[in-house]
């Protein structure tokens, strides 16, 4: 089982009990705070003998003196028949007020310790404490994985509100909950009798009756040598029993003292187990220091926050997870569909295909590609494979190709359908590699490999027609893609540019609707986003979103993008045709690899055309005035210098350190942005040597040109773009 699964299931199940312990723990933390309020801790670096003398003056019938972990001194006595307990000021012995054991109902403590179920409940509580410990360990593993190592542990957290609450609170509270769990286990071990604190019996000792008067406490050597801060409890010899002794319990151990001679009759050192236990109690209860009690209380209360946000995260993930309806067990299915998907959209196509087959009376089993195999019942196999990045397999299917290469082919036809985007040079590369491997192994196929561009429903339907013909049975594939929930964004400002070749472009700013906490918690609407993330816009009449890089972050209070008219572009035409007040339906997709890490290192921003948008967003939010250097490439400063006036203002404000421009369509414009980089080779090398972070945004051709230019510029330093990428200092956002 993976750490994630362990964390999830422990959290969802035993986490409910942890909530009970957390809340009750938070309530119990009130006690030490209240105690500190009633009897402020006094210095304890004076002898117990002095304390006894002071107490004897103000409380003549004292029977017992206790020093509470908070440092407060409580004296027990009898006034006539009435038992009394008072706080005493150790400085002069005067009575501060009556002592109450605890202002909180006992059942809160018992609920915390034993779930009100006695010894069985104690085991339950100990098990819960162990679970909290396991949750902390798994949380740390997941946190390190999510943030990318110890060094980036403090980086900004993205995601839905629930995710941010879970992760941010986790970073703060993890260590405290871990301590709480360990100390709880230590305490449980002794309560449940797994560890015996002090197996010795107490000695049977008596004061020797001599008829002489008692020795006053102030004169007892033991009490003179013992500091008040080490005292736990001092029992004074009773008036009625001449054989009664002094009994002193201290951090170091416990002893019995003869009342007349003052001789130590017996002494038992505190065993190690007892000392460990004492420490655990102090750490777990916060009794010794009220600020720690406050910290513990908040940590306890946070368990509820963890549980709630965790449940929300789980619920959302469950809803979004590939969920195939009507799956037949693999052994009985005559049609098998295997899926490799990075974002999850390919599972939607698989479901459509499955539904169509089921409609035709087939028994279908759909599964992830890594489970690829056939059974005796199998008649047809389909592989629906998306390609990720530069021709790689989606993460979950990363070993699927090797797995398939080792299988022996059978006579069952295997048909591959690829999903990808033609803008990428390695269009459907993974699907093609799969198909090649299958053919090389000797698997037959029904249809040659086909590649679906940008999740095109029409193309999928055409493939379905071809499939129906090949199978000789009717098969209709009507695919409605599942999109993330969209929100309506209203256009509030636009800045139009005429473009060099007559193509219009504009910087468009949208307002988003006010959202309740509930919607944000559940991740509806717009999650927190930053410049460099993507906004998916769904044009009317289409189900396929187009993605634009965001030039603004959550803090800016608006959604801003830079749109250029694409020839025949459905979405750009829709966007550029918007009037003020018109709305679009959109959703946010995070782009964590491109976001800037929190650091004061120099930043080299390289953008061309509308690609400057996310870079402008970075500069706009550069409140810390990190040294940012922008290389901007356009065609004509009069026509496509996007964000020009803003960039000048940011320069003046120090948000941008330097600006270099290159315009390709004007005389002496400086050519392309990569030419500007070559001209500034010395400075670029300097910045990289200083540890600069590089972000490139623009067309694929431009990004390639920039990479080549930088490789040649950096060669003398023995640096390269690929080395920078490996160090996560170089990222591209290309379109």
């Amino acid at each position, binding site marked *: 089982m993976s750490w994630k699964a362990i964390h999830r299931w422990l959290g969802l199940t035993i986490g409910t009990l942890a909530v009970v312990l957390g809340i009750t723990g938070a309530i119990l933390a009130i006690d030490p705070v209240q105690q500190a309020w009633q009897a402020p801790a006094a210095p304890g670096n004076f002898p117990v003998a002095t304390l006894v003398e002071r107490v004897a003056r103000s409380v003549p019938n004292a029977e*017992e003196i206790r020093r509470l972990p908070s440092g407060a001194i409580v004296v*027990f006595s*009898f006034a006539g*028949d009435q*038992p009394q*307990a008072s706080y005493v000021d150790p400085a002069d012995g005067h009575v501060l007020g009556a002592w109450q*054991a*605890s202002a909180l109902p*006992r059942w809160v403590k*018992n609920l915390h310790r034993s779930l009100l179920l006695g010894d069985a409940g104690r085991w339950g509580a100990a098990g819960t404490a162990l679970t909290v410990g396991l949750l902390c360990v798994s949380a740390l593993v997941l946190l390190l994985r999510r943030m990318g190592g110890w060094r980036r542990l403090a980086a900004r957290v993205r995601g839905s509100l629930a995710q941010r609450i879970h992760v941010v609170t986790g970073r703060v509270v993890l260590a405290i909950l871990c301590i709480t769990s360990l100390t709880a286990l230590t305490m449980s071990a002794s309560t449940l*009798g797994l560890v*015996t604190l002090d197996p010795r*019996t*107490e000695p*049977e000792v*008596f004061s020797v009756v001599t008829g002489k008067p008692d020795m006053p406490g102030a004169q007892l050597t033991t009490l003179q040598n013992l500091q008040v801060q080490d005292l736990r409890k001092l029992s004074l010899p009773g008036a009625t029993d001449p054989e009664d002794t002094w009994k002193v319990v201290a951090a170091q151990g416990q002893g019995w003292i003869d009342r007349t001679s003052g001789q130590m009759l017996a002494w038992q050192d505190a065993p190690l187990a007892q000392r460990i236990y004492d420490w655990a109690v102090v750490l777990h209860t916060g009794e010794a220091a009220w600020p720690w009690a406050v910290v513990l209380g908040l940590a306890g209360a946070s368990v509820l926050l963890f549980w709630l946000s965790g449940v929300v995260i789980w619920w959302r993930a469950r809803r979004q997870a590939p969920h195939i309806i009507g799956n037949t067990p693999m052994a009985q299915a005559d049609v098998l569909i295997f899926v490799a998907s990075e974002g999850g959209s390919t599972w939607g196509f698989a479901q459509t295909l499955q539904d169509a087959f089921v409609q035709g009376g087939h028994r279908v089993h759909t599964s992830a590609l890594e489970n690829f195999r056939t059974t005796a019942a199998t008649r047809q196999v389909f592989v629906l494979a998306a390609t990720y990045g530069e021709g790689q397999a989606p993460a979950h299917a990363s070993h699927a190709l090797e797995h398939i290469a080792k299988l022996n082919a059978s006579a069952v036809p295997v048909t591959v359908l690829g999903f990808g985007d033609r803008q990428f040079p390695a269009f459907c590369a993974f699907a093609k590699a799969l198909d090649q491997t299958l053919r090389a192994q000797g698997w037959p196929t029904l249809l040659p490999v086909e590649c679906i561009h940008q999740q095109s429903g029409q193309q999928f339907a055409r493939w379905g027609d071809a499939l129906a013909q090949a199978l000789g049975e009717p098969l209709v594939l009507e695919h409605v893609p599942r999109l993330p929930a969209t929100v309506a964004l209203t256009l509030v400002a636009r800045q139009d540019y005429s473009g060099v070749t007559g193509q219009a472009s504009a910087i468009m700013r949208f307002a988003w609707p006010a959202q309740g906490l509930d919607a944000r918690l559940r991740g509806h609407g717009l999650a927190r986003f930053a410049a460099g993330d993507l906004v998916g816009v769904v044009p009317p009449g289409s189900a396929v979103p187009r993605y634009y890089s965001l030039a603004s972050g959550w803090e800016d209070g608006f959604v801003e993008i830079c749109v250029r008219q694409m020839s025949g572009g459905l979405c750009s035409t829709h966007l550029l045709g918007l009037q003020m007040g018109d709305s679009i339906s959109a959703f946010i997709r995070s782009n964590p690899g491109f976001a800037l890490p929190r650091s004061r290192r120099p930043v080299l921003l390289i953008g061309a055309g509308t690609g400057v948008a996310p870079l402008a967003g970075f500069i706009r939010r550069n409140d810390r005035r990190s040294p940012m250097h922008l290389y901007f490439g356009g065609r004509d400063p009069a026509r496509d210098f996007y964000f020009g006036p803003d960039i000048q203002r940011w320069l003046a404000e120090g948000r941008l350190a330097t600006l270099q421009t290159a315009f390709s369509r004007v005389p002496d414009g400086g050519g392309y942005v990569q030419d500007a980089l070559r001209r500034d080779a010395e400075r670029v090398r300097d910045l990289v040597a200083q540890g600069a972070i590089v972000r490139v945004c623009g067309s694929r051709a431009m990004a390639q040109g920039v990479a080549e230019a930088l490789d040649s510029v950096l060669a003398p330093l023995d640096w390269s773009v690929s080395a920078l990428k490996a160090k996560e200092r170089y990222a591209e956002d290309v379109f």
Partner: protein
Amino acid sequence: MSKPLLTILATACALALPALAHSRPLTLTAQLKNYGGDGAYLAAYLTDAKGAYVRTLWVAGGKAKYHKHLSDWSRLSAGDAKRLNGVTGASVGAGRTLKVTADLADALIDAGYEIRIDAAAEDMRDSPSEVRIPLSKANAGKPQAGKQYIQSATFQLQ
């Protein structure tokens, strides 16, 4: 003579006595106060005219590690290997009543013997010899108040 030896001797005598005489059942009832704490540990035991431990009547509260808080009983009965034989039960909640019976030799009544009850509750103050009732016919049925935890304790003879 050393004190432990005395105690053992006294115990031996007391245990020998019932064999010689008739015994009768004694019912001990202790009504606890609402002291606002966890269930109390109680030890009811018998001491002789000299204050020496004779036998344990009942111990309420099963966890042996807390028995040291019943300090008089714990100290006095230390030499009695059979002190807990069949005479333990659950601790007694605040406001509740403990009612136990024990067989008692006739010879123990009106002979200077005393019923004592030690009490203790978690996080609160120990109360050794919370109640002391002389074991006499005259005292039977007479409620006796405790110092901290016990509202009243009564014994009945049949």
